[in-house]
Structure formats: C-alpha cells, structure tokens
C-alpha cells in the first residue's frame, strides 16, 4: 500500500516536473537509460545522437547500458517483475519483431512519431521497406559478410571473391569461422550447393532442403571454428587462426582501417540486416514523452547520416545516403566501405525476418544437433 502511494507520489512529481520542463520549452530532463551494444557502435551513437541532443537539452543525462545482446530476455524479465528501468533499447530487427510479438515493445506510427525527410517525404516513405514489423525504428543497415587474411591467400590464386570460395577447401585451404547458428550459414550453403538465389527459402522450408544445407556445411565442418560474439572473427583473423570468417562488416572495417590488419573484404552474398530502436511497452507518460522527443531527433535524416562518419554502417533513411561524408577522425571517404555501396552490393541477401521467425526454433534444433554430432 505504502509503496504504491510513494510510487504514485513520485510519478506525480515526475509529471509535474515534465510539465514544468515543457512549459520552459525543453521537453526532456533527468536521466535517461539507453541500451546499446557497447564498443565502436555505441560510440558512434554517442557522437551522432546523444552529444548533439545534450547540447540542446542540457538537463538530460544519458546512461548507457550495454545489454543489447540480452535485451529480449532482460525486457521479458523486467516485464514479469513489473519494473521497467530502460527507456530506449537498441536491438536487431529480428529481436524487435519478437519483442513486438511478445507485447514488450511499443507499436510505432512512423509518420506521426518520426521526423519527415528535409524535402518533406514522409518518414514511412523515407524508411520504406526497412520498417519491418510494427515496433521497429530502423537506424542502420549492416551486413554479415566475410573477411580474409590477405597474406594467407595461396600463391598464384585470386583472392576469394565468391561466397562459394568459403566452401572450397582445395583452392583456399585453412580454417574458417562461421557463426554458431543456422541463420545465414544455411542460405550460403544452399547457394553454393546449386540452389538458385530466388529459391533458397523455398528449399530451406523443407526437411530435404535443411538436410541439403547441413550436408554442404558438413564438407567444411572440420575446418570451421564457430563463433558466438561479433568480435571473435576479427580476433581470429588478427591472430592468424583462420583464413576467412564471417562477421559484421563494421567489425572488419575497424580491423582493416583503424588497426591496419592484413585483412580483405569479401562482399559476395553479404546478408543485410537492420539495427534500430524499440521503445519498451508500458513506459509512464512523462518518460515516454521524453523518449519520443529523443527518438524523433536521433532518427532524423542528418543524425543518421552523421553516424556513418563514425562507423561503416549504412543509414536506414534514403534521404541520409547523399549526406554520408568522410570518417570523422581518419578523414577517409566512407561510401566505399558501406555495405550498400553499389560496388559491394552486387549480390546481396536481406535477412528474411518472416521466414526465420517461423523456422528458427525448428532449424536451430536440427543445426545444434548437427553441431553436437
């Protein structure tokens, strides 16, 4: 009883301060918990989003929680405990879909809540197809692709430039690293086992197709190190443990450009995926107003373009693309390092959210059983 009264009182005070702040012309005050991935990615968000926002709203104090990898489970636990401590959460699109399905993320009306493009194009047109699901606010397009050791390419052989080179142990001997989950690996395996790109998901939906993909992976199985964290592959490449491995393109960018490792990019059959915000469902009014004010700012055309100056991920808005400039510290042109650059995006996949939402449990069970053999 007492507790609820205290809560009521504090939220009343909260509403009152929010009201006062609004009257003063600033929407947002107080501390604000953002959840992200840490590392270079979070740094790019600090530089592009929160620093400029704080400059305009000195009352806001941002607190970062580097929990995005466990965001789905943690949000579910918070929801069950009835104690929501996060204000805004950065997740990949597939997690956003699941949070939305679970009722843990708030539904978004893009045109109402997000800023239009500078030329007046509505937000929903500007983001276009990238607004997957009902709850997801996209920020960036990233890709899962391959990096290889340039000094380990055998003499007299072209560097790998085809996804099937990963499966070609004769021409390109050495260890590989792949993510220890079926997503992406199954698609690549089918693609290199003669399945046409357009048919990949139809084939993968059948038991025979799944067997076929696993059989193809079986051919390189003894040469694969399976990774769990995005940082594993760059580390394995830097240590010379593997010849070629998959990871997120931004990780490879920083290994190549910022750390000068002898690593080359292999963009063929890269899989595009999206990362963005979700607003946890059930935020109290005052906190929600503050969050929406920030989201509106942080996902406008300029802010998304700014982020690309710190990390090689493509902005999710069409209108941001022309504004992408040079790297903020190194001064190099960012466009050629973007997964969406025409030279890199000759052959691409888009993560099939609908398919994996359905098949993930089933194929994962088979994949893990196969791994454990």
């Amino acid at each position: 009883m007492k507790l609820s009264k205290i809560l009521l009182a504090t939220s009343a005070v909260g509403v009152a301060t929010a009201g006062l702040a609004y009257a003063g012309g600033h929407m947002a005050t107080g501390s604000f918990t953002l959840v992200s991935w840490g590392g270079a990615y979070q740094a790019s968000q600090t530089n592009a989003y929160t620093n400029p926002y704080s400059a305009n709203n000195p009352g806001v104090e941002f607190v970062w929680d580097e929990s995005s990898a466990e965001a789905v489970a943690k949000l579910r636990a918070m929801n069950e405990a009835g104690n929501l401590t996060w204000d805004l959460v950065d997740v990949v699109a597939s997690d956003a879909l699941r949070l939305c399905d679970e009722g843990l993320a708030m539904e978004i009306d893009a045109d109402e809540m997000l800023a239009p493009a500078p030329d007046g194009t509505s937000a929903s047109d500007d983001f276009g197809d990238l607004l997957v699901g009902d709850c997801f606010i996209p920020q960036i397009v990233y890709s899962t692709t391959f990096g290889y050791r340039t000094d380990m390419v055998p003499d007299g052989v072209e560097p790998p430039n085809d996804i099937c080179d990963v499966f070609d142990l004769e021409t390109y001997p050495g260890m590989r690293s792949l993510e220890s989950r079926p997503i992406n690996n199954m698609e690549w395996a089918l693609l290199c086992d003669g399945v046409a790109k357009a048919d990949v998901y139809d084939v993968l939906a059948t038991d025979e197709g799944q067997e076929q993909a696993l059989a193809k992976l079986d051919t390189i199985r003894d040469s694969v190190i399976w990774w769990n964290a995005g940082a594993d592959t760059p580390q394995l490449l830097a240590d010379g443990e593997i010849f070629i491995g998959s990871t997120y393109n931004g990780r490879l960018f920083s290994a190549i450009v910022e750390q000068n490792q002898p690593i080359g990019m292999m963009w063929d059959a890269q899989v595009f995926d999206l990362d963005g915000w979700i607003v946890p469902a059930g935020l109290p009014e005052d906190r929600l107003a503050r969050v929406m004010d920030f989201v509106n700012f942080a996902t406008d055309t300029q802010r998304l373009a700014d982020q690309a100056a710190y990390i090689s991920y493509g902005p999710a808005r069409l209108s941001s693309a022309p504004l992408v400039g040079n790297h903020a510290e190194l001064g190099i042109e960012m466009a050629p390092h973007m997964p969406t650059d025409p030279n890199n995006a000759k052959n691409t996949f888009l993560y099939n959210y609908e398919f994996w939402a359905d098949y993930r449990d089933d194929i994962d069970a088979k994949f893990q059983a196969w791994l454990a053999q």
Partner: protein
Amino acid sequence: MARANSRLLKTNTSDGDRMSDTTNSGPMLAADGTPLKTSLARALRRQKLRALMLIAPLLAFVVLTFVVPIGSMLFRSVENQIVSGTLPETVEALDAWHGQDDTLPDETVFQALFFDLFRAAEAKEHTKLGSRLNYERTGLSSMFRTTGRGIDDIGEVFQDWLEDADPAFKDGITWYEMLSGTGGEDLIQERRALWANMVGEGFAGDIGFTLSGEIAALLPQTAAAYSDWAIYTAVADEDVVSEEDPWEAVYAALALDLARPETAFALTSYTGVGARPLANAIAALPSLPQIDFRAAFIEENDGWGNIENWQTIKIYSPDYTTGYFLNAIDMEKGLEGVNARPENQQLYIKLFVRTMIMSLIITGSCIFLGYPVAWLLANLPVRSANVLMILVLLPFWTSLLVRTSAWKVLLQQQGVINDILVWLGFVDDANRLILMNNSTGTIIAMTHILLPFMILPLYSVMKTIPPSYLRAAKSLGATNWTAFWRVYFPQSVPGIGAGSILVFILAIGYYITPEIVGGTDGVFISNRIAYHISSSLNWGLAAALGSILLALVLALYWLYDRIVGIDNVKLGG
C-alpha cells in the same frame, strides 16, 4: 537461557523431594504445579523459538533467494496456461474433436476461434501464443501473427451487412442502449474472468455498462461479444463505453445470433430497446453473407487448414504439460502418447551425458593435480607453505573471464603453447595441436579454474593428519608406498570426497568457460540452457533442462552418500 535453566534446576530439586513419597500418585510436577514434561517442553520450545529468531534473517534470505526462484523455475517447466488462457472457448470446443481421422475441426471450433482470437489480437496476446506454439511446430508463429492482422476483415463482412440492413447499427449508442439493462451481471463477471485469465491482470472496476438479462437470453453471443468489448474498452483502453463503436466481432456475433431460426421467432415478441433495427436485420436475413469461418480463416492463412497445426494446438491445450520435459529428453508429445524425436533433432541426452562425463574427467584431473600440491602445502614449513598457498589462491582471486581468456591466448593454434612446442621441435609447424574450441580446451581450462576448490579441502584435511603416523608405519617396517597407501591415503579420503563434490557440482553447471573455449564438442548443457533463456526465449524448456540438471546433481549426491557416506566428507579439521 540462564533463567530457564535455573528454573529447571529448581523443579528438579523440588521434584526430587516429592518423588520419594508420591511415586505412584501421577505425573511429576514442577514447582508451579504443571507437569514436569510440559514445563520442560515449554522451556525447550522457547529456546528453540529464540534460536529460530536468530537465524530468521538467514532463513528468510534463503527462502527468498533460493527456494522461491527454484520453485518458480520448476513450475515454469510444466506451466502451459497460455493456450487455454488465450483461446478458452476454442479449447473447450476442441474437446469434441479427436484429430485422429483426417477431418479438420468443425465450424463451431472455428467460430469459437474467431471470437477468442479477436479478443487476443485486440489485447496483443495472440503473438505470444504463436511464439509459444512455434516451439512445438514450425509456422505457427506467423500463422497467428498474420491471422491476427486480418481478423478484422473476417468480421467486417457482417458489419457491412448489418449497417446496410439498418444504418442505426453504425452508432455505438444504438448498441449501448440495446444491450443495457439489468440481470446480466453473471455474464459480465464471467467475461471479466476470461480477460483476466488471458492478460493476467485483474480487469476489475466499473465499466459504465450493465448488461440486460433479457437481451442476453435472446442474443447470447452478441451479449458475450459486447461484454468483452465493453470490459476491454473501459478497463484497458480507459474509454467511455457508450461513446465508442463496438468491434467487428460484435457485429459477427449478432449476425450469428440472428441466423439461428429460433432467434427470429423469439424476436417477434421482443419490444424492448432496439427492436426496430433488430427487426430490420431479421428482414434482411436473405442477404446475409454465407457464414463460413473455416473458409475465412484458411483464406487468411492456409495453416488453419493443416490438420497437424490443429493437433499441436489440441496436444498443448491443457493447463499443465509434460511437453517441456519430454523435449528436454529428446522426446515429443503426439496425439497418441509420447514418441522419440527425429534423430536429426536429438541433442539434449547427448549433452547431459557429455556434461557428466566431462565433469567427471575434470574432477579426476583436479584430484590428480591437486593431491600432490595439497600434500606439499600441508608438509612444507609454514613460511614456504604460505608462499605456495598464495600461488594457489592468486588465480582464485582473478576474474573468471580473464582466466578463461588467458587460456584462449595460450591454447590457440598460433598461441603460446603451440609456439613453444614448434620452437622445441616437438610439433611440426604445419600440424599444430588443436587444443581449444573442442573438449580438450574445456577440460584444460576448467581443471585449472576449479583446482583451488580441490586443493583447499584436501589441504585442510591433510593438515590434521599427524606426520607421526607415517613415521610409525615406517618404523614398523612399511615401505614408503605402503605407508602412504595404507596409512596416509585413507585418512585423506574425506578431503578427496569434499573436493570432488565441490568440483563436480561446480563443473556440471559451468557456462562461461565452455562457451569461450569449448567450440562445439566441448559445450555443456548449461550453454543450451543459456541459449533458451536469452536467445530463443523458450523459458519452459530451459526450466525443464535446469530441473533435470538439478535432479541429476541431487541423485548423484544421494549416490555419493550411499557409497562413500556424507559423514566422511570434511572441509577442514
């Protein structure tokens, strides 16, 4: 305590006096006249209570942080109320369907499904159910998601028809006035309970609407659907019922009510509010679109025409299920009992066995490596023993993650150990040893990490074995080996027992080290549990796996007690 004792003392003496002459005249009495037995029991009870109060904080802490979470975890592994909570009427209607032959459930099931799913979709609960059922059968997640999106369309047909029959149905107020009255409180109560079951909140409070019992008898489905809508509108949306327009489901319910021949007959004598629009609707019955919810559902998603999807819903409709436990031992529930899973999905038994075997190997190597170290510690002079002790404890104080990552640097193919071996010429540069990302890596790293848990109990037991025993054995003619094996070793067994239990039980639940250095064949069951907690969100399965692991540990503990005897375990002195 002192006071109680002194009183007991007094009773004793006075009893002693009395005993001599009143031996057979009844129970012994204390000084205040109560029987001695009662008095003693009371004093002891008070002592016990006082002792209990001393440990009460700890007890509460243990209950709160240990018993309750474990209990809730055990509960989660069998709990399955989501299906009957979200689709209560469908589950009831499915009772009559056995699913053995190749016929889909009949129209009544699909009708129930329409109203259940409509409610669920409004409250955004249908996707939760979809994710839950997708663990059992692929495709159900999107089936529920897409159908939830299109379910308005199924009802809209009837809305259009009713509004054509009488435009008054367009206004929410028509509905409100028609259904308002008294006598329908029971139904409202019933529908509140349905909401509360599904959403998990109280759904109490005034809804600004009371149902007419007369209409509820005339138009039962309409009354139910309208009540559902009214409760949700008032409680969840916090809107005023009389000002809002009802859901499409309410229109569909009225169409269903009107389509029943007896309703038309009963309505001829109805003169209450809304009699005119109802009469108009009856008159328009010939133009009522065909009622075929089954076809409508299959059009939304053809999964509803798949008999196996329905079988899954039926199998998982009870409130409690053994399904998670069966999944956890590579079995699955079918309509006719329990089957083994297809071979290409069998995983967990293998992981349990691997976890057990590797934990045993790790325990064995800890004994092998720890015993000599503990012996040294116990027998060296104090000064050098202390230095050695610090060396044992130092890694113990270092972060687990750091130690494991350090092993990564040492063990990898281009790592320190391989480099040294290549430099020494023991290993060819082209065939470097694979020491990690497999079970070898897990065993090496975990042995090192758990070693202190073996050495410390061993040391504390060995410290208490008097060195004179060994000397005595030798002076009586024993060889070094016999003296050790027959005299020293048996006395150190309690230390081995304690260390083994500690190391084994810690190893069996280890997660982080296998995850980092285990690759694929060095991971434990706990890694799968972690996956189901944080990635797949299948907490029921994770709970079942955890419960089995807990049961295994308890069983092994019991076995250990039977064979070695838990009294023989010593952590010190």
